[in-house]
């Protein structure tokens, strides 16, 4: 028992020291935005190059949605990057703030959750856990394969995007995606004035168009500016990490930047439905040693009532 604790302590110490070192070395590469611009005044949390979270006046930072890149540029992707996301299920308490932050940034109607928090239970005897699911930006994407017009495509930085000015609305990609990640604009979109005022780019997926498909896009329009995606910033638990595989570093909302390979190795990371061979770019850390109440599957009764045949897939 003592031996186990000792080991654990050492590992924790190692982990935190690695994290600190990594923060100092690489933290600056992702966070580098201090551009002044006239906006309404409000306080915004930002990360400083040395990894500290500070509150500054919003007039001191550039607007979230600056001029989008051209279609050709959006199809190429950000040179030299290989974006990757890590979601620590041990930290996720299912609050759903990631979804809210995402919906705010992308002006998404409430019924569409680009990142959705599922309550999973892999078997009747197994512990339930929360499971936030964005688009996995697969390296072997079943969706882009079937697209007849190259409206959805894989970029060099690993992101899968949709060009809603080319999409013909056949919805083949929706049925091909094994993760129910894609959403369709069934009706004419109701757009806010702000949304309409921004020119369209596949990198931000709005203004939306009726009869086209949309999905989580890893917020490339803000990552281009070196900022983190909405869900990562919005997670109060720091459960979602975003980073670059080439730099071997990922950062969460607490500003902790860690070595990606070490994080995956130490926590026995896995990818959802690895056996399908889609090679997702989203890794999960197993939900062990949780510090918050474990989800009660009974709370999901409502969801079950809505559809009796669907419990967790693995059950």
């Amino acid at each position, binding site marked *: 028992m003592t031996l186990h604790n000792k080991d654990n302590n050492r590992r924790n110490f190692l982990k935190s020291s690695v994290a600190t070192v990594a923060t100092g070395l690489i933290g600056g590469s992702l966070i580098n935005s201090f551009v002044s611009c006239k906006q309404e005044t409000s306080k915004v949390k930002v990360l400083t190059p040395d990894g500290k979270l500070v509150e500054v006046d919003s007039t001191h930072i550039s607007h979230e949605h600056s001029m989008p890149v051209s279609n050709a540029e959006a199809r190429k992707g950000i040179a030299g990057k290989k974006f990757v996301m890590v979601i620590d299920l041990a930290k996720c308490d299912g609050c759903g703030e990631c979804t809210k932050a995402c919906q705010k940034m992308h002006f998404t109607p409430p*019924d*569409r959750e680009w990142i*959705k928090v*599922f*309550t*999973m239970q892999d078997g009747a005897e197994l512990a339930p856990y929360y499971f936030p*699911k964005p688009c996995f930006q697969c390296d072997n994407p*079943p969706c882009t*394969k*079937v*697209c*007849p*017009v*190259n*409206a959805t495509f894989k970029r060099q930085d690993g992101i899968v995007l949709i060009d809603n000015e*080319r*999409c*013909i*609305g*056949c*919805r*083949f990609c*929706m*049925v*091909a995606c*094994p*993760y*129910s990640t*894609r*959403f*369709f*604009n*069934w*009706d*004419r979109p109701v757009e806010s004035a702000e949304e309409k005022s921004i020119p369209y780019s596949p990198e931000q997926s709005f203004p939306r*168009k*009726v*009869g*086209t*498909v949309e999905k989580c896009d890893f917020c490339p329009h803000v990552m281009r500016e070196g900022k983190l995606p909405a869900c990562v910033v919005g997670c109060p638990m720091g459960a979602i990490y975003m980073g670059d595989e080439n730099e071997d570093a990922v950062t969460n909302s607490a500003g902790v930047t860690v070595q990606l390979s070490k994080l995956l190795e130490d926590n026995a990371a896995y990818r959802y*439905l690895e056996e*399908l061979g*889609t090679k997702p770019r989203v890794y999960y850390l197993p939900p062990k040693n949780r510090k918050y109440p474990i989800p009660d599957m009974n709370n*999901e009764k*409502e*969801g079950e009532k*809505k*559809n009796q*045949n*669907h*419990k*967790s*897939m*693995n059950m």
Partner: protein
Amino acid sequence: MENKNIIITSNNNVTSIENDFLKPIGKYSPFNRLWIGFLLIIAAWGVAIYIRQIYFGLGTTAMRNYVSWGLYISTFVFFIGISHSGTLVSAILRITNKEWRRPITRSAELLTWVSLLFGGIMPVIDMGRPDRVFNLVIFGRLQSPLLWDIICIGTYFVGSSLFLYLPMIPDIALCRDRLSANASQFRKWIYRKFSLGWKDTPNNWKRLEKAMHIMTIIIIPIAVSVHTVVGYIFAMTLRPGWNSTVFGPYFVAGALYSGSAAVVLIMAAFRKMYHLEKYITKKQFNYMGQIVLALTLIYAYFNLNEYAVPAYKMASTEGFLLQDLFSGSYSVVFWTLQFGTVLLPAIILAFPKGRTPVMASIVCVVIVIGAWVKRYIIVIPTLLHPYLPIQNVPISWTQYFPNWVEWSITFGALAGIFLVITLFAKIFPIVSIWEVKEGREIEEKYKQVDNAIRNEKENVQVAIS
């Protein structure tokens, strides 16, 4: 060549055949008018609702994010399946030189052509952005199964148009020569243009036969490819229930099963409406019934492969889907289809009494409807069984049944099929006149030869005795 002689030698017989088939052309009985009016109303309603759907978006249908393909795509698969009939009856029976095919080839080929036309329209109706349909040409990706479908269905459409049209040329020329006197300007124009200056010369016949021969052979692999790639649309995904290596041939088998049954129905319809009992006889129903029986058994065999093999293993998500089909919310429909529209028809068709015109028609109605519902059962339950659980979504996302918009448009398309068939048969002969005449001639030749042999035998016997 041969046919020139027929007209000269057995003039009486030939004129009566021609009269029988030319009689209904251009004449609209009150019932015909009522029927055409009825179809026009349904088709026009469908078009109106489609325009409404374009304006408001596909949100006017019952489809939502989980079930994002519904009745339109099921119907697309069904119509394309029906289109296999023409090839089967016409091409295969032509190649094998079955005499009894002669009075039914034209209607079978017509059915292929029309159902292909409307089958091809269904995915466009299902598109969120039909205004961007030309993106398929501009940006088309050959890696997408959808492009395979466009290529195969397009090729099949051109091929079956030729296959329908080529043997029509002599008949159109006949209409030109015999019906132009009291035909409308429009029909006169059609007969003149589409008979391509056919002159009934040996050279004409030689060319026609050559072209027919080539088409008969190449249309068969094209037809097989069409339904294979329709199956591939589903089989190329990772979805439980679709992720199957048997889907290509399974869809071909299903297409032949429903298509051949549809041939029996169009045969029965024209036999009754156009009083063709003299030509489309019990023989045709008996033989077609046997073909439908064989294809039903093949289809049953593919069903066994498609369901029993994964059911033995009941692997995770696939197992949930199968449970839902076998004993869950789709079980009643599923078992009704398997027993009521596959096994029962096979049992009935196995008996000669089950292959009389009336019985065969009833059985084939059941088969055709069953095939349609089966398409629905292939498409929808899979979409309701994703890998991730369906949680906290609007209730409309968790279930699917087509709403009035989808029914209106789908029945509009169905009415379109009936309308084209009805109008076609009022402009052109629905039976290939020259082929029936040729058949009569061959029959007579056989009789002559038989008689000659008998006479010879008698002579020999007389000589011996």
